[in-house]
């Protein structure tokens, strides 16, 4: 598991979100510019050759509608990830709380349990004292084991947040590629002859970006599934009978049975 501080993880998550938003906006801006160029070329084509312009316009219209839908679907998908990542911030804050607010208190108790508070206590002897020594030791071990679980759960949450961040960051490259591809396709629109080719180039770029993003999502989901294994390993201590007999806190005293 990683040991990155939650503050750093939070800053990285916010940065990844901002980068994704920026790239989606870049894509929209570039797509809008493409559409303006497309309409401009179609307009100009009309002055030069109205018949050819009508033919190209008809061919372009059907393809353009389909491309627009694909583009909107793609950007909506990325925005869903961005919106979905906002609650992940609480994953980081809760991880922070486990490690900063709960862990130090519990860890401190392990030492307190094992130490004698009064110097005179070793003067106490006999079987009751021997029993207490053993019970005190078992309590100290159980507290330390609880501290380990708390530390692991806090780190697991931070690690999971990091996997979310890595996923968001993995979306950026396909979006940058898409912005470039739209800009390159727009250069082909200068003439109405190149216009249909430009639309096809754009369609291919959107399809490539969608495929790359789907691929990233699948990989990210595999990593998420892997983290389930990590937490199961980390919490194996809960099933360790030497710390928690039958999965419960070691019982030192049974008052109800005593009376």
């Amino acid at each position, binding site marked *: 598991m990683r040991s990155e501080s939650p503050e750093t993880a939070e800053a990285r998550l916010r940065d990844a979100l901002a980068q994704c938003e920026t790239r989606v906006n870049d894509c929209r801006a570039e797509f809008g510019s493409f559409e303006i160029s497309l309409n401009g070329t179609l307009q100009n084509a009309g002055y030069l050759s109205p018949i050819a312009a009508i033919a190209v316009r008809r061919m372009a219209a059907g393809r353009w509608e389909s491309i627009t839908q694909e583009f909107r679907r793609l950007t909506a998908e990325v925005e869903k990830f961005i919106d979905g990542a906002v609650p992940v911030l609480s994953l980081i804050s809760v991880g922070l709380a486990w490690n900063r607010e709960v862990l130090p208190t519990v860890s401190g108790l392990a030492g307190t349990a094992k130490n004698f508070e009064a*110097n005179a206590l070793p003067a106490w002897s*006999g079987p009751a004292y021997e029993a207490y020594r053993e*019970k005190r030791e078992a309590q100290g071990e*159980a507290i330390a084991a609880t501290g380990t679980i708390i530390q692991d*759960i806090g780190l697991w949450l931070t690690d999971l947040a990091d996997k979310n961040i890595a996923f968001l960051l993995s979306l950026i490259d396909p979006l940058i590629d898409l912005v470039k591809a739209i800009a390159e396709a727009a250069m082909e629109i200068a003439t109405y002859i190149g216009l249909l080719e430009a639309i096809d180039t754009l369609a291919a770029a959107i399809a490539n970006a969608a495929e790359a993003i789907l691929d990233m999502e699948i990989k990210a989901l595999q990593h998420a*599934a892997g983290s389930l294994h990590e*937490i199961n390993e980390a919490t194996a201590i809960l099933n360790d009978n030497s710390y928690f007999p039958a999965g419960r806190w070691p019982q030192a005293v049974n008052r109800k049975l005593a009376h």
Partner: protein
Amino acid sequence: MPDSDEIALVRDALEVEARKWDEMTATMGAAGRKAHGLTLEPSSFWASPVPGVSGQLSSVYQDVHKLIINLMSDAAIEFSEIAGALRTAAYRYDGTDQNQARDLVEIYGRYNTHP
């Protein structure tokens, strides 16, 4: 056999030790209450809206969270019981090893004289 001063010394030491467990009860109780509030919604776990992933991660967290809360709660109860056991030990302490079996039962409870 220890004299009355030595017996008093041990009894005082047992009371000091008992107070330590009282304080640990309070500390563990406070930490447990803090931990109790560390809940997370399923949507917090994963950015991707693929059904099942967030739910699975959330379910694992909830299980571990519940276990930790239960352990901390049981620990606080146990610490308090230990404080009580030490006070019983102080009350019964007379500096001898007589009535060993009965002492152990009185202090730690029947069937529970091991850690």
